[in-house]
């Protein structure tokens, strides 16, 4: 009887694994099937010459170049804000914090990590409205607001990754420099951080992937369907995930739909590429026990 139960569990587990992997393969295959034909230069640049578009001399109207540019700008902008704050916060949590305050911060950051992304977007929108009321007519939803909101979204991940990376440094290494007379700060910057750097970088890459793929936040804070490449951080912009969402609900004919699939493939490649490089960097320091 018990043997039967155990065998069922074994079979069902394998079935579960198979189901998941099959679903994944099916999904990717379907995307490639529908969008593969549209993966060419005109998907990105439409009718505009590639060089002109890249040098921002002419705007692209039928291609996804503005969306790709927008996503890249988003990633750069939000990482620019999030990385210093995240790493600094993580250093504080790992090295200078203890006791009740640490529990409190831990709880707050857990909450921030768990809050749905659309709430972060809503907060960004509220901030815009709030500022707009006070600086009449000058602030509106734009690239800056989106970058700030995305930075807030990935901040807890960066803090948590830095904290964990620093805390798992070998105690022997941690104690060596102070014994030789280094200050706490010198220990952190010259010994601990370099030691933990691969985990931190892998965390940064994961956060970058999160920024690239998020739709809910940018939908509320400045992504629009048509904007070209923004001329300043106060301009509205296009983004790949928003483009995919937009096309999914309104496409004029099979060509536009194939473009949507092409964009989905590109976004997929971008995000999984970032993730795979994060894993590869982290593998240099395999601390997790994978095999039993």
């Amino acid at each position: 009887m018990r043997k039967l139960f155990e065998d069922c569990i074994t079979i069902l587990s394998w079935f579960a694994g198979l189901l998941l992997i099959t679903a994944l393969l099916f999904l990717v295959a379907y995307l490639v099937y529908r969008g593969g034909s549209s993966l060419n230069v005109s998907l990105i640049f439409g009718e505009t010459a590639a060089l002109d578009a890249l040098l921002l001399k002419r705007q692209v109207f039928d291609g996804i170049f503005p969306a790709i540019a927008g996503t890249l700008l988003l990633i750069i902008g939000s990482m620019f804000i999030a990385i210093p704050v995240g790493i600094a916060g993580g250093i504080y949590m790992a090295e200078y914090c203890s006791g009740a305050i640490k529990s409190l911060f831990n709880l707050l950051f857990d909450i921030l990590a768990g809050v749905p992304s659309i709430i972060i977007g809503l907060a960004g929108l509220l901030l815009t409205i709030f500022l707009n009321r006070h600086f009449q007519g000058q602030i509106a939803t734009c690239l800056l607001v989106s970058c700030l909101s995305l930075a807030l979204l990935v901040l807890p991940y960066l803090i948590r990754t830095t904290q964990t990376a620093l805390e798992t440094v070998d105690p022997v290494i941690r104690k060596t420099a102070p014994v030789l007379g280094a200050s706490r700060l010198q220990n952190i910057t010259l010994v601990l951080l370099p030691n933990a750097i691969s985990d931190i970088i892998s965390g940064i890459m994961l956060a970058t992937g999160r920024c690239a793929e998020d739709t809910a936040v940018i939908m509320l804070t400045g992504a629009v369907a048509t904007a070209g490449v923004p001329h300043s951080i106060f301009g509205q912009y296009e983004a790949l995930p928003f483009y995919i969402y937009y096309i999914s609900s309104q496409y004029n004919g099979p060509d536009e739909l194939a473009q949507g699939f092409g964009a989905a493939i590109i976004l997929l490649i971008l995000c999984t590429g970032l993730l795979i490089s994060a894993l590869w960097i982290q593998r240099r320091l395999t601390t997790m026990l994978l095999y039993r």
Partner: protein
Amino acid sequence: MTHRAYSVSEHLFLAAAVISGLLTVAVFCFLFLFGLPLLQSGQLTDLLFSPWAPAKGLYGIYPMLKTSLLLALLSMAIAFPISLGCSFIITSLAPVRLRGFLLAVIRVMTGIPTVVYSFAALFLLVPLMRNLIGHGTGMTILTATPVLAMVIAPTMILFFVNSFTRVSTAYTLATDALGGSETQKLLYVILPQAWPGVVNGVLLGFGRAMGDTMVSLMLAGNSIGVPESVTESARTLTAHIALVMAFDFDSMEFKSVFVCGLFLYILTAVLMMLFRMSTAYFSGRK
């Protein structure tokens, strides 16, 4: 703790952590401030339990609440067994070489954008559902369920695997020495030991399922009625926020969005506290 004065950089570290913590609280405050008029004017029970009919002055979020809960619970019902099964395979059942590969595949899956899942499902699942159900547009809660399950499963799997591998080798080796099979080891040794991790994983997965926007926005139809069955078009709290954001900021409709936001925020906070409490409870029991 040293008693010397902190240098500038160290003050900066503190500032960074404090700012981040404050921002978390600030989000809550923003939501609360902007939602206050609606909370004050309508009774809380009214808001939570009446339907959404702005033309009649009803700003209740009950339909959205019901939909979010239904969708989250259903997708957890699918995702939990699948995640458990997959984590069983990755931890023990698969040959050693396959484990690393499977784990890598699952980790890559966590990076796939939800909008990409939804986009593919829109053209794959929706017509299928339309034919299966026989009537309706095919955009229903049931359509969104498997996609949402696929979104939350990888994270849960990673979480489960993490807790399974932390079980002390003393136990696992002992089981092997006694001649136990892999499945027996999993069921009777690892699972009971790693149960806190499983509980936490479920909490996280549920939070993620309640908080996802794109899957339900693109696949569940977004009608404003209270769903009587899962084969109906419906709108979740998150989709409601996304759809209504285009409104007049001063209108009551827009303010209902803050109530949704407040609810989701508080739900997250409660889940996180449950998370901590369960960790403390289980480690206390040891």
